[in-house]
């Protein structure tokens, strides 16, 4: 029984490292996309996906250092990323983020 526990622990650690590397590579590629992105909507989508990847990073970190305190952080990053994406999308579509008066 103890052997099985040690084995699952090892599998968890290895998969965690693989996930960290994968998400780090994804973040670097997305940063490249943000920099070169042919059109502005491409950059907006890349930034949104970066937010999702950072959420995943925080979640993986809370698995790595065994704690549940980072759950609020994941939610917070998600909300702030959503607000940022919303502002960029509105800027791209209307050219203004907070309108003076709507109709």
């Amino acid at each position: 029984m103890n052997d099985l526990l040690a084995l699952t622990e090892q599998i968890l650690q290895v998969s965690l490292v693989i996930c960290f590397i994968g998400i780090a590579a994804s973040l670097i590629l997305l940063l490249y996309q943000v920099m070169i992105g042919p059109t502005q909507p491409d950059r907006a989508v890349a930034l949104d996906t970066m937010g999702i990847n950072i959420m995943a990073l925080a979640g993986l970190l809370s698995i790595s250092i065994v704690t549940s305190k980072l759950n609020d952080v994941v939610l917070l990053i998600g909300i702030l990323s959503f607000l940022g994406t919303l502002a960029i999308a509105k800027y791209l579509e209307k050219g203004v983020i907070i309108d003076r008066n709507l109709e």
Partner: protein
Amino acid sequence: MYKPNDLVLRTTTSLIAFILLGFAIYLLLAGHNSPGGGFVGGLLTSGAILLMYMAYGMEVVKKIIPINFTLLIPIGLSFAVGTGLGSFIFNVPFLSQTFGYFHLPIFGEIELATAMIFDIGVYFTVVGVMMTIILTIANDQ
């Protein structure tokens, strides 16, 4: 004239804004012993108000929330300074804090700390500063 269609944004904003405000209050109350505190709570509250501003425009939200956000900064700062000065009444050093266990009708036995009042001061200050910055930039012609 091209007219953007933001029906989805407006409908979800009326729901999401209140979830954000509730989460902000949770973060404000959860501080001191777990992640959270006045700063994050204020940041999230200003995020919720910003979401309403983005969805409904300046004039409408000014009618809904008739608060002068600049006025929140001195209120919050006086809260925070008052917490520090209050420690002189009990003849202890500046910004000393204490806590006690109280029995409230609905919540049962809870721990109340004077650091909470300081956090509320930080909360008001952050909301005031963030909204002032954002609205000042947005008003720029």
